[in-house]
């Protein structure tokens, strides 16, 4: 599989849509090291569901004088929806069904949200942050039994 860093070094970048996938932190390193400038492009996943595979990937990388330019495909709405749905779903599991113990809840929470932040942070915004923090706080508040019955 072609990697972005490798292709830039060999001057063999491919100008195709969503050709490269890099974890966010690795992408940051490439941006600095290889003078790559990327622009965000919002990609709709309806009606072309296949576009979902492009989210978080870099594509259309072209050499431009001494720098490289590319596009990263993002969709804030879909990730916000995923975050709010999954976070509240697992919160409901822990609050209402008791099938999920608290340590498992926190592990699952970190795994899901950490994964999204690590791989797709270009698609996130303040609302995403709220959808991560609020369910977490609710979970913590429930643990310490807030309300006076």
């Amino acid at each position, binding site marked *: 599989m072609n990697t972005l860093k490798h292709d830039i070094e060999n001057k063999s970048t491919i100008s195709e849509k969503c050709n490269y996938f890099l974890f966010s932190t690795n992408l940051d390193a490439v941006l600095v090291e290889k003078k790559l400038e990327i622009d965000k492009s919002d990609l709709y996943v309806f009606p072309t569901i296949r576009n979902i595979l492009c989210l978080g990937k870099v594509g259309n990388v072209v050499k431009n004088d001494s720098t490289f330019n590319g596009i990263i495909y993002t969709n804030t709405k879909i990730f916000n929806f995923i975050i709010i749905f999954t976070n509240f779903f697992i919160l409901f599991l822990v*609050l*209402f069904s008791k099938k999920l113990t608290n340590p498992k809840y926190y592990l699952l929470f970190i795994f899901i949200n950490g994964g999204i932040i690590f791989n797709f942070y270009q698609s996130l*915004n*303040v*609302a995403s942050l*709220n959808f991560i*923090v*609020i369910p977490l*706080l*609710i979970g913590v*508040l*429930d643990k*310490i*039994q*807030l*309300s*006076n*019955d």
Partner: protein
Amino acid sequence: MIKKSFPGMLFLFFLIFFFQSSTYNYETLDWDVNAFLVTSLELGRGNLPFETQYENKPPLLFAIFYFFTILANKNLLIIKILNDLIIFLISVQSIYLFKKRGTRPEIFSFVPSVVFILVTSNVWFHPSYSEFISLFCISSSYLIYKRSENRSKFLIIGLLLSASSLINLGTSLFLICFVVILLLYENNKYKKIFNLLIGFGIIHLILLGIYAVNGSLSDYLMAMVQIPLSYGVTEFSLFSSLTIFLTSFIKYNLLIYTLILFSISLSIHIILKMVRENKLMFENSELIFLIFFGLMFFNLAGKGYYHHLIFLLYFLSLSFIFLRDTIINKGIVVFFILVITSFTISEFTEYSLNNIKNFLTLEEEYPIKKVSNEIILHNYKYDEIFSTNHILLLYYLDKPNTSYVVHPALYDYEEITSVLIENNKIKDNEIVFQLDRLPQIYEGNDLETTDNSNYYKIELPEINNSLLNYWTKDNNVFLFIKR
């Protein structure tokens, strides 16, 4: 009891004054307030609101602003301070809302007030918005509901909610909120709801009577019914508007933003607890309905203006009270709030201290005040003024606008102008129509570009244009005198 809470109240007053004074040097913080002031002067001329001048708010607001004008002797700076006093009164009420019976307010009772003051430290909430005065009525209603043993308390709550709706029509929504609370939480609910509705209806009927006797009932109904109903067709996304607000708030102050997030989490936690335990009767759980209706107010207002969030933010601030009876160490919460307060104070120090130091000269430096003094000084005739920008000129010179419309932005609101045209209050092209009538003074856009030979531009006194308004928009004053 009040004596023992005095240091705490003094602290609240200091906080409000310190934050709000940071913008005292700007003459205008929001055009809305200027329009309230100009319209309020009609009462002094013996006219009822909407008879000769129109601003898009109910009549009681103008009566209050007229009262402020008299109290402050038309000093705009004093009027700003009077509004800050309203925020102070709301904060003091909040302390007594959740006080345990027979005890003096504990330090933790001040937390919701301090959170609210911190949220309103943002310049978006510095102008004297109608929402603050309405909120005072609504929080008074809530205080009476929580604390009073008076048999007529529901009648009084109705009167207060009625007053609120005559200050800001949208707050009628809170009448529904109180009906819901009574239905869910009270015994003998129908009698109480009846009393509430009687109280609400009385003031509205009195006002209708006043307008009917004066022969201007049609103006009242146009302003209070026809125009608000025409508002319902605007597009609005609650989710996007809230995201924009929160994004802006992060840029303002991350620490206060975390307080808002925490209060949202607290409220959702209580809602989930109600659902899980299928029980509504938690202590102070009626607050959840007030929060919900605060959100509904923002949604129904449908414009996304941040001042429409004042109710939601206030009730969210009150939600901190849910932390009181928990295992969380209250001292730690108070400590964190104090730390956040200290950081916020430090951000305001330079501007606030500067304004406090120059307090006595601030009003003299207001640019439009200087311009109006110049008009008087040069003996220009100013019986007819048409103003489409810096309408404070009308306030200082105590003149009505030649147009029925006071707020300059209303010319762009199709939903309002269409009703006003239909009722023969303005013409289709009102600005051109007014200029054709050749008023003695025109204040607005630069006429030189339109080759209007009927007017000449006058030399303005030396003014600091940056003090015209906080948002550094429209920082030019163009004043024309009829030849």
